[in-house]
């Protein structure tokens, strides 16, 4: 990414590469900050599901750093794109299960009860931050040859 930005032949390509690089740097910051926050909040609990954000952050940081440095090597692209897709789904599943686990007794998708669950102890949009990072990463490498 850095090379593509510095070697951009025209203003259009430079703007495109600048956006890509900046967004990937944001994703990299996210991969560091979110696990740090989760660690402080004690998200590393007994259930295996609670470990997922941490486990995902490891390939997340590595693949994002690698793609910033070299986006041409096929295995790096595959590694990065796979990690980002996993992040998209982990975030979406995380949000869903946060809502489900927030229901007091039985799961009910009536508006009032669902909104109560959304406002429960487990934050719903926070899980979607991983989906956001995944989408941002995928958009940043979309047709980046």
């Amino acid at each position, binding site marked *: 990414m850095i090379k593509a930005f510095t070697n951009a032949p025209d203003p*259009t390509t430079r703007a495109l590469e600048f*956006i890509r690089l900046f967004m990937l740097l944001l994703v990299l910051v996210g991969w560091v900050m979110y696990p740090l*926050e989760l660690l402080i909040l004690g998200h590393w609990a007994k259930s295996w599901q609670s470990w997922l954000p941490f486990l995902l952050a490891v390939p997340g940081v590595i693949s994002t750093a690698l793609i910033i440095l070299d986006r041409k090597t096929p295995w790096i692209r595959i590694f990065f794109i796979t990690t980002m897709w996993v992040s998209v789904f982990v975030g979406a599943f995380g949000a869903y299960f946060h809502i489900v686990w927030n229901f007091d007794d039985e799961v009910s998708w009536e508006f009032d009860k669902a909104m109560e669950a959304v406002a429960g102890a487990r934050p719903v*949009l*926070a899980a*979607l931050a991983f989906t956001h990072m995944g989408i941002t990463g995928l958009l940043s490498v*979309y047709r980046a040859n």
Partner: protein
Amino acid sequence: MIEALIRAKDEQDRLLELVRSSFLLLCAVGFVFYGLEHWVLKHYLESWQSKIPLFLSLVGFPLTAAMFLHRGPLVRYPFLLWMGVSLLAGMMGAFFHLQWNAQDAEVTIWSLSGFREAFDGARPVLAALAHTHIGAVGLIVGLTINDK
């Protein structure tokens, strides 16, 4: 944005406009979802500070939506200004969430243990930075557009 996407003169230009539009769409979705979340979480309290996130969304979403229809200076400059406001509001929100958590716990954020305790408080710290994230993305999209 839509017009620029349709009128793109070559493949590279089209790709740039597509990437810009996609990131702008993420900003718009962010303003809707964060606004909705603050409403569900009853963040609209008596203090004026608690009303800021909702106002950021109420102004931010229409401005972002307007960028899809017209991105001339009349829309883009207010959009850029609001993205700057969102960026700063997010940072200040994170700081004050931390500060107020520290006050509740009677610790100082200027020590490691105090910072950690304040971070673990009732007010989420990184959540406020979501507005900084939206602002930064919007600024990057807006600043790379020129009027020519």
